[in-house]
C-alpha cells in the first residue's frame, strides 16, 4: 500500500487539489495499484501547491505544482519533471524554524492519534501537572507577545484573569484574521486544529476559565468546518468536557462564525459580536481581562498566541526565549503574499530582515518585474521602499521606522504599483469598515479619499497634501481604536517614501 499525501487546505483546494486527488484515485485504479490517499493541511509552500507527496522508503517525495493530467505519470514512475525529491530536504522548508507549524501539512488534521504521535498534547499534560499558577509563570517568562498585532505580553493578560475571582471566566480566540496578506490562522486551523485547541485549553487551566469560544471569520468556511470537527473529536476523546484528560478540570469549546466585518477583529468589537450585537468598539477600560465576554473576566488572544503555548509548556520558557531578537521573542509565522514568486508561510525566529523574506524566500515579484513596494502588517501597515527592506522584523524595530509587524503579513508589489492609489484605498477601506463610533475615523476617512483624488488630479496640490497630513494627525490622535488610529500608516508612508506617485499629473494650481 503506497501512501499519498494531498492537502485539503482551502488554498490548495482553490488551486485544484481535489481534482488532483481524484486523478490519483482514477490513475491507481487503472494501474491496479494499491494506494491510500491521506488528506493533510498545507505545509505552506503555496507556490508548489497542489503539492503531492508519495511515501517511498520512509521519505515523502514531493511533486508540484501538479495538475490532474500529471497523476498518471507521477504514479507510474518516481521520475517526473515536477519531482522535488524529499520534501523535508527542500531548502525553503529546511531554513525555517517551525515551532507552531511543526506538524502542519504533515499530519491528518483531524486524527488525534496522528497529533499525539507527532508530539501533540505534551504541553497540556505538563500544564495539568504543574497547575494554573506555574503555567501562567512559564508563559510570562517565555516573553510570548500577542500575535494579533499589538504585541502585548500574553502572560500578563493570563495573570490578570487568573487573579480575579468570578463565577465564570472565558477564553476567547480571535480567529477573525481580516488583514490582507495574512493566512497563518486559517492554515493552522485547517492543518493542525488540535494545537489551537490545546493552547486554549492550557489558557483555561492557567486562568480558571471553563468555557472557550473561537470566533472565526465567515470568509473561512473550511477552517470553521475543520475546527468544529476537531472540537467534536476532542470531546469524544476526553480532551474537552467536565474532566479534561482526567485532570478534574472542566473546559468546553465552541466555534462561532463572524459575518463579514473587518472591525470584528478588534477585540472589544469581537466580544460585542459574540454577544449577538453590532460590532461597535467598546471604550477601554474596563479591559476585557477584567470585564470581557458577557461582562466576565476573559482572556482574548490571537490563534497564533494560543498555538504557541503548547510548545512553550513542553520545552520551557528559556528554550522559547532563546529564539528571537530584542524584545520580540520566539517564532513568528511570516506570510508572503501579493506579487511574489514563492508565496507562502515562513516561520522563523523574530529577526530576519524584510529583504531576506521577500528576496531569499520569496524570490521577488512573480511578474518578473522589479519590486517597488512592500506592505507589512496588513491594511494598517506601512508601505516600505527598497531602502528600508533591511529593517529587522521585530516589534520595536518596525516601530522605529514608522511601521508595524501586525499579524506578520508581507505583501509585495512590483513597479507597476501606484502608491497614491494604495493610499486612497487605505482611506476607502477605513471608510467602508469603520464601526462608525468616532468622527475622525468615520468622516476623516471619506475626506481622505476625496483629498487623495484632488492631489492626484493636480488640484491645489501642496495645500491638499498638507490637508491630507492634517487629517492623518487627527485620525492618529482622535480615534478610539486602531482602525482609525493606524490607517494613517499606509497613507503617510506612501506620501513619505513615494511622493512622485502623487504628482504624476501636471498641477492645476489655478483651477478650483
Amino acid at each position: 500500500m503506497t501512501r499519498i499525501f494531498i492537502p485539503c487546505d482551502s488554498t490548495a483546494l482553490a488551486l485544484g487539489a481535489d481534482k488532483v486527488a481524484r486523478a490519483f484515485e482514477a490513475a491507481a485504479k487503472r494501474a491496479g495499484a494499491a494506494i491510500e490517499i491521506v488528506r493533510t493541511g498545507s505545509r505552506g509552500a503555496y507556490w508548489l501547491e497542489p503539492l503531492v507527496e508519495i511515501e517511498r522508503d520512509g521519505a515523502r517525495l514531493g511533486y508540484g505544482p501538479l495538475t490532474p493530467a500529471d497523476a498518471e505519470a507521477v504514479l507510474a514512475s518516481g521520475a517526473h519533471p515536477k519531482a522535488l525529491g524529499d520534501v523535508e530536504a527542500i531548502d525553503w522548508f529546511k531554513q525555517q524554524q517551525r515551532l507552531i507549524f511543526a506538524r502542519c501539512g504533515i499530519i491528518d488534521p483531524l486524527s488525534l492519534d496522528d497529533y499525539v504521535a507527532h508530539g501533540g498534547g505534551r504541553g497540556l499534560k505538563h500544564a495539568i501537572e504543574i497547575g494554573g499558577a506555574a503555567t501562567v509563570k512559564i508563559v510570562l517568562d517565555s516573553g510570548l507577545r500577542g500575535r494579533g498585532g499589538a504585541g502585548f505580553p500574553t502572560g500578563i493578560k493570563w495573570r490578570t484573569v487568573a487573579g480575579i475571582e468570578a463565577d465564570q471566566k472565558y477564553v476567547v480566540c480571535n480567529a477573525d484574521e481580516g488583514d490582507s496578506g495574512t493566512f497563518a490562522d486559517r492554515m493552522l486551523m485547517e492543518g493542525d486544529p488540535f494545537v489551537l485547541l490545546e493552547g486554549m485549553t492550557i489558557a483555561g487551566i492557567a486562568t480558571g476559565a471553563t468555557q472557550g469560544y473561537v470566533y472565526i471569520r465567515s470568509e473561512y468556511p473550511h477552517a470553521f468546518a475543520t475546527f468544529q470537527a476537531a472540537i467534536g473529536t476532542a470531546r469524544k476523546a476526553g480532551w474537552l468536557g467536565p474532566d479534561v484528560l482526567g485532570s478534574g478540570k472542566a473546559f468546553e469549546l465552541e466555534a462561532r462564525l463572524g459575518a463579514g466585518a473587518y472591525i470584528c477583529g478588534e477585540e472589544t468589537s469581537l466580544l460585542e459580536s459574540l454577544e449577538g450585537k453590532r460590532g461597535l468598539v467598546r471604550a477601554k477600560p474596563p479591559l476585557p481581562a477584567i470585564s470581557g465576554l458577557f461582562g466576565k473576566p476573559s482572556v482574548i488572544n490571537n490563534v497564533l498566541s494560543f498555538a504557541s503555548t503548547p510548545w512553550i509548556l513542553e520545552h520551557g520558557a528559556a528554550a522559547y526565549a532563546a529564539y528571537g531578537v530584542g524584545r520580540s521573542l520566539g517564532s513568528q509565522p511570516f506570510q508572503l503574499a501579493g506579487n511574489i514568486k514563492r508565496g507562502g508561510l515562513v516561520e522563523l525566529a523574530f529577526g530576519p530582515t524584510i529583504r531576506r523574506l521577500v528576496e531569499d524566500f520569496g524570490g521577488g515579484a512573480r511578474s518578473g518585474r522589479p519590486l517597488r513596494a512592500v506592505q507589512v502588517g496588513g491594511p494598517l501597515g506601512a508601505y516600505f521602499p527598497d531602502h528600508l527592506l533591511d529593517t529587522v522584523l521585530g516589534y520595536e524595530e518596525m516601530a522605529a521606522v514608522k511601521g508595524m509587524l501586525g499579524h506578520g503579513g508581507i505583501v509585495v508589489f512590483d513597479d507597476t504599483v501606484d502608491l497614491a492609489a494604495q493610499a486612497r484605498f487605505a482611506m476607502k477601506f477605513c471608510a467602508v469598515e469603520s464601526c462608525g463610533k468616532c468622527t475622525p475615523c468615520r468622516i476623516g476617512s471619506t475626506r481622505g479619499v476625496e483629498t487623495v483624488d484632488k492631489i492626484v488630479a493636480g488640484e491645489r496640490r501642496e495645500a491638499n497634501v498638507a490637508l491630507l497630513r492634517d487629517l492623518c494627525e487627527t485620525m492618529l490622535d482622535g480615534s478610539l481604536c486602531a482602525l482609525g488610529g493606524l490607517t494613517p500608516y499606509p497613507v503617510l508612508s506612501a506620501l513619505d517614501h513615494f511622493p512622485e506617485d502623487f504628482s504624476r499629473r501636471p498641477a492645476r494650481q489655478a483651477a478650483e
Partner: protein
Amino acid sequence: MVDSGWSEAEAKALIDARRHEKGAMLPILHDLMHRFGYIDEAAIPLIASALNVSKAETVGVISFYHDFRRTPAEGPVLKICRAESCQAAGCEDLVDHLERRHGLVADSHHGRVQVETVYCLGHCAASPAAMLDGEPMARLTRESLDACLAEIAR
C-alpha cells in the same frame, strides 16, 4: 444548495433550536442565511421576540454585517477579493474584465452572476482569489475566470 422558499414554520424551528444559547443572534442569522439564502422581513419579529430584543435592534444587527442579505441572491454569487495582496496580483484587471467582457458589474446586485467585492479570503499567497458559491479559487487569470463563467452558463 439554498432554495429560497420562505417558510415561517422552518424559520421558527431554526430560531427555537438556538434561542437559549448565549449570544444566539449571529448563529441564528447564519442558520437562516444557510437555509433560505437571505433574512426574510418576516423573520425579524420572530427573532426579536425569541431573543427578547427590539425589532430595531435586530434590524441594526442584520444591517451591520456584510454577510446578511435582506433579499435572495439572483443566481450564483462570485465573491472577488479586492484587498491589497490581490491588488498587487492584478485583481482590478479581473474586475474590469468581468465588466467589459461579461457585463458583470461588481456590487451592482444584478446580472446572471452576482459579483461581490470582499476583502481577503486568506488565499493571499496565491492571489488573486475569489469564491464562487463557497468554492475557493486562486491564482486567477482572465482565462480561468472565463472558463469558470462558461461552466456556470452550461
